[in-house]
């Protein structure tokens, strides 16, 4: 990563499928990965629903894009922050989310989790510590 890379945060606060924001946010993240900035993703409020496992969209005739989150590691996008309070309010725990991992090139390519569960106050710190915030 270049020294003058900017810290980019993609903020996801909306549920998938009801609206297109989650999908089109992911499209920005994938394209943005080529720019070698310092990228993080935040999932809070209804955005945490984007990461649930077992999504099956056959019955609604819409493409299931949830597998794409698991590919983020291949694009060197491996900082996914999920807010604990948002999960709890929605009756969810980390067990309801997909497992998303990346291979750490600085640690002998060990497979590590990309999802970090953070408190609301930690999420506020993450948000404050950015150069660019893109909201979806």
């Amino acid at each position, binding site marked *: 990563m270049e020294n003058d890379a900017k810290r980019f945060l993609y903020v996801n606060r909306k549920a998938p*499928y009801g609206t297109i924001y989650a999908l089109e946010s992911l499209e920005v993240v994938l394209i943005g990965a080529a720019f070698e900035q310092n990228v993080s993703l935040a999932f809070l409020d*209804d955005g945490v*629903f984007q990461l649930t*496992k077992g*999504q099956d969209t056959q*019955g609604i005739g819409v493409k299931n894009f949830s597998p794409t989150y698991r590919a983020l590691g291949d694009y060197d996008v491996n900082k996914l922050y999920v807010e604990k309070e948002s999960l709890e309010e929605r009756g969810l725990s980390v067990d309801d989310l997909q497992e998303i991992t990346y291979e750490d090139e600085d640690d002998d390519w060990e497979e590590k989790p990309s999802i970090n569960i953070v408190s609301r106050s930690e999420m506020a710190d993450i948000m404050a510590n950015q150069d660019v915030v893109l909201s979806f």
Partner: protein
Amino acid sequence: MSTLHTVNKSPFSTQSLVSCLGHAKDGDTVLLIEDGVYGAISQSGISDAISARATEVNLCVLQPDLEARGVDAAKVVEGVNLVDYSGFVELAAKHSLTQAWL
């Protein structure tokens, strides 16, 4: 005379479900569709309020929308009934009126 109410918004984001439940009459059906299906998740911050209304009002959730969002049917609040699109159509036919809470 009774009404099928549809709610398509997450109750964690908007007031639509609360407003709908505040206006639905006994004997009406409230059907959760699209992002509205999140209202059927048990042990959430609002699930008690939902199940409290499940006796006077027929609470239903659209299963294809539930599956799309990865919500296991086992996680649905007790007393909420699962329907498919065919069931949705027949609910609209059975009730004399349909009202969307957009």
